[in-house]
């Protein structure tokens, strides 16, 4: 059963655990739970194998379809939302996410961001994570900025 799981996980793709969508996460939990019943011989192995294969297959189909069709992707995932624009909170979108400004502040601190004014855009991405694009003046100095040193 372990080897079977290894094989299925292998063919289902190579994304690491940091790249999970909510559905990936739930699928992993389902798979884990399908297992123990086989271990304790509560269900025959054949039934476990079928259940397992069907879940993995459907998940592969869903992810394949979302990679090919944007409209299908939009159907099965929540859209990303802009929560900071040019240093200002976009309260409307925060409310849509049922997110308190304090929660956003907490996420910003985790990213090391202290001042809203230094942020050009921040998004709650589809995977639920916060992305931050810094304002031009607050971007780190790059090699191309050598002229600024005078």
């Amino acid at each position, binding site marked *: 059963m372990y080897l079977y799981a290894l094989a299925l996980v292998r063919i289902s793709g190579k994304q690491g655990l940091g790249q999970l969508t909510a559905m990936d996460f*739930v699928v992993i939990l389902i798979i884990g*739970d399908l297992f123990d019943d086989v271990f304790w011989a509560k269900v025959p192995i054949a039934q476990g194998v079928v259940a397992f294969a069907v879940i993995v297959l*459907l998940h592969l189909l869903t992810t394949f379809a979302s990679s090919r069709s944007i409209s299908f992707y939009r159907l099965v995932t929540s859209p990303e939302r802009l929560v900071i624009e040019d240093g200002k909170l976009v309260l409307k979108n925060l409310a849509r996410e049922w*997110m308190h400004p304090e929660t956003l502040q907490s996420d910003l601190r985790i990213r090391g961001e202290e001042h809203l004014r230094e942020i050009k855009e921040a998004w709650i991405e589809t995977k639920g994570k916060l992305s931050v694009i810094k304002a031009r003046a607050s971007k780190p100095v790059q090699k191309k900025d050598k002229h600024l040193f005078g």
Partner: protein
Amino acid sequence: MDVTELMYTALRASFVYLFLLIVVRLLGKREIGATSAFDLVVALILGEVVDEIIYGDVIILQGVIAIVVVALWHLVNSWASFKSEFIDKLTGAPPTVVVKNGQIQRKNLSKERFNEQELFSELRLMGVDNVKEVKQATLEPSGTVSVLLEDWAKPVQRQDLTETKPRGQKKKASTNGKS
């Protein structure tokens, strides 16, 4: 184990997958997954319920009701925490400041059952080896430690070079204050 039973297993598994796809979609992207410990527990409950459905240990309707009820309560909970400050305080821990202006806040640390070694470990993970560089470190509700650096310890930004103030003032103080 005859073939029809296997077919039913496949059918139930397909149904469960599609049903969960809808439930997860409706729950939204921040409601499930690794955002908070409780979201994780809800995801585990949902996952735990479905294997019984797939193997036919409980009838589908019963499983569907269990999933819908758990998902619904989770939605009500996040909605209520957003709408009411009281419920928010009741269900979620507020952030705790553990370093303020380079000073370790020992009282807050012990309140969170967090020791100095763990704090230093968290700071090192952020590339900080000197607590003096920390303006504020906070144990956030999500369980992560956030670190805000003192102005002089921040990396140089474009505006630091274009502003007219004497150069070097905001630059990283590389050697002073080394422990």
